[in-house]
């Protein structure tokens, strides 16, 4: 098999489009139930309708609010945007682009350079 040296534009573009669709559109269909860790962390505690712990003994008891809870995209929303579907989608798109830029940029910077002329 001939080894392709490059990832190729179409594979990269296709992969990004799939990621953007998953984070930007499909994410609104995601389950909003507590996830595995949250579930385990709340075991043993009584939780009210808002998800606040009211009694008992459990892992999540001393949990603090996130230091950046007031941030623009906190909790995968957009500050000031009340439409959940739009906010989640927009946050997802931002997340995919930021992750690709930060990750791709970092990996590109530290990559092993080919000798000139190859």
């Amino acid at each position, binding site marked *: 098999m001939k080894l392709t040296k490059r990832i190729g534009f179409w*594979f990269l573009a296709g992969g990004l489009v799939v990621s953007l669709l998953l984070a930007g559109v499909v994410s609104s269909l*995601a389950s909003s139930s507590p996830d595995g860790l949250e579930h385990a962390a709340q075991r043993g505690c009584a939780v009210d309708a808002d998800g606040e712990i009211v009694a008992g003994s459990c892992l999540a008891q001393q949990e603090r609010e996130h230091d950046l809870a007031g941030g623009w995209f906190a*909790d995968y929303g957009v500050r000031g945007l009340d439409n959940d579907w739009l906010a989640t989608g927009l946050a997802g798109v931002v997340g995919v682009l930021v992750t690709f830029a930060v*990750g*791709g940029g*970092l990996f590109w910077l530290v990559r092993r350079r080919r000798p000139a002329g190859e």
Partner: protein
Amino acid sequence: MDGLALHIADGVIETPVAAGFAALAVAVVVVCLARGRRALDDRLAPMAGLVAAFVFAAQMLNFPVLPGVSGHLVGGALAALLVGPWVAALCVSVVLVVQALVFADGGLSALGLNITNMALVGTAAAYLVIVVLLRVLPRTLAGLAVTAFAASMISVVVAALAFVGEYWVGGGVELRAGLGEVTGVMAGVHALIGIGEGLITAVTVVTVARVRPDLVYALRGARPASTTAPAPVTGGSVE
């Protein structure tokens, strides 16, 4: 959509212990960076960026596992199959840092704990399974799919148990029910999440292997060994 997706929040683990794990995480990430550089070339670097972006997207997709309980992909096994273990740990770390800083998901003081569980322990567990299974299973797409499924499932459960270990060392609350019960719940729920993770990982990796087998790190150097068994992985279109 609520945050806190398999990610430890601030305050759950006592600060000195969280700080210790942060130092450990930084040290191991530096090692991963040094080892990963050897593999990162003009082709793998953008691929690794794409894998990180895909893992971020997939982590937003919580699927139900029990009534009232959900889970989502962690991505260590997927990344290890596609870009190799060292770069995979870096990919998941990048995702966790972006989530903590931009989306307030996973506490800032807990970032070291989350990187240790999901990016380092989860990926290492996945890679061990991958190495063993790729050696014993036939080098077919089915073999790759089984490897992806098993590696994902084991990786998620081991990552969940790593959290229990962290809690055992520095948990903030003395549990009335004891840590044994939490261990059982964490392992059980994450085994179910692991099934979902396994399916997503298998479908994704097999799809990439069909389209561009040269971009699947786990299949590198696999060609010569496939003389006895049919190897449809080489049958995909190649540029």
